[in-house]
């Protein structure tokens, strides 16, 4: 009897685990990331490269509205570099004493400005599709970082025979429904990495996916490091509680 139940249970658990994957046509590659696992950390050079890819390529269409320039300190930039990043941006502020909105240089406390004033404007400029905000993309899709990397690197293929692709669309093996409004955004050497790394499509895709995992979960390192301490502490405390429980109950048996 118990074996039957165990069989049903494990079959059910197996089915639970796999059913979310079924949506994609091509199985996602199982990329390894430095932030995986309980000791996982971000790779600072990869984050900075990924930010560069975002700034020089993605930011033309995609916003990153939850990130402020000051947050970039996490990537290993110093105050002056962050001020310089902010100063490149133009921010709308106001109203001033005359009641007019005005433009000014960005400050570290500002959020990264979006390329379009609102979603409608973004859709109008992009053939009807709104380029989604990328701040949380790595958490808003199952297996987010691997999905982003795969989609950007080897997801773009020729559509299979008979698969209709409309004007302004591309075929992408990993995109749900396979019809993606974003043309392949990366080509070899689309950016010139400041650290001299060769900018292959796969490298850039991996770096920007890494960067987007940081934008989605900036407290990841703090979380895991705290977690190790908390769990170790609880293991010891629970061990002591177990010893006390044994002692207290010993005189019953």
């Amino acid at each position: 009897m118990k074996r039957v139940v165990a069989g049903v249970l494990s079959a059910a658990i197996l089915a639970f685990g796999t059913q979310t994957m079924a949506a994609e046509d091509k199985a996602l590659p199982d990329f390894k990331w430095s932030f995986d696992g309980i000791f996982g950390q971000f790779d600072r050079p990869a984050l900075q490269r990924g930010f560069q890819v975002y700034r020089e390529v993605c930011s033309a269409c995609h916003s990153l509205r939850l990130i402020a320039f000051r947050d970039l300190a996490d990537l290993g930039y110093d105050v002056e570099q962050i001020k310089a990043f902010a100063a490149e941006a133009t921010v709308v502020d106001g109203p001033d004493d005359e009641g007019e909105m005005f433009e000014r240089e960005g400050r570290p406390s500002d959020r990264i400005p979006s390329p379009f004033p609102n979603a409608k404007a973004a859709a109008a400029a992009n053939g009807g599709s709104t380029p989604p905000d990328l701040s949380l993309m790595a958490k808003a899709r199952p297996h987010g970082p691997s999905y982003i990397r795969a989609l950007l690197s080897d997801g773009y293929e020729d559509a299979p025979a008979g698969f209709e692709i409309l004007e302004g669309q591309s075929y992408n093996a990993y995109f749900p429904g396979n019809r993606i409004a974003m043309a392949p955004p990366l080509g070899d050497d689309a950016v010139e990495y400041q650290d001299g790394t060769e900018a292959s499509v796969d490298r850039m895709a991996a770096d920007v996916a890494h960067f987007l995992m940081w934008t989605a979960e900036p407290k990841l390192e703090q979380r895991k490091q705290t977690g190790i301490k908390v769990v170790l502490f609880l293991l010891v405390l629970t061990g002591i509680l177990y010893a006390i429980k044994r002692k207290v109950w010993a005189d019953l048996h």
Partner: protein
Amino acid sequence: MTDTASPTHGDEGETRRDFLYLLAGGMGAVGTVAAVWPLIDSMNPAADVLALASTEVDLDPIELGQRVTVTWRGNPIFIDRRTKAVIDGARAVPLEDLPDPETDDARVQQAEWLIMIGVCTHLGCIPKGQKSGDPLGEYGGWFCPCHGSHYDTAGRIRKGPAPKNLVVPPYSFVEDTKIQIG
């Protein structure tokens, strides 16, 4: 564990149990404090609030004799670019005439630039005097309409219920014509 000179077997057990109780109690206390701290700290200013805790102000567009108000940490900051005559007037006031004695020199970093938090030290109203046409009070500085406190051209209390001079915020000149408040 405690195979030292315990007289009886029972006592040995008691000692060990007491030690475990102390250990568990101690760890429980430490754990509770560690768990409560995030709750308390979550009520402290968050990172986005702290990022606005200091403001840079460009003084360049302010003309001689002009008063400008900026916002810092939710309060108005009065910036007054004072003329030579005003500075001389403020410095001529004898200290014994002041309810809260303070020299003009002690209230400014550069005599031309008087920078103060624009909150009346009585009950927190915003004194008048920043806009042209505002009442300036009897001493040509600022006048608080709530309970009639008069401040002079150095922002010092001269008459009325306010106990202290207008507060000078922490600030520094990052450039000749740029200050950072906070």
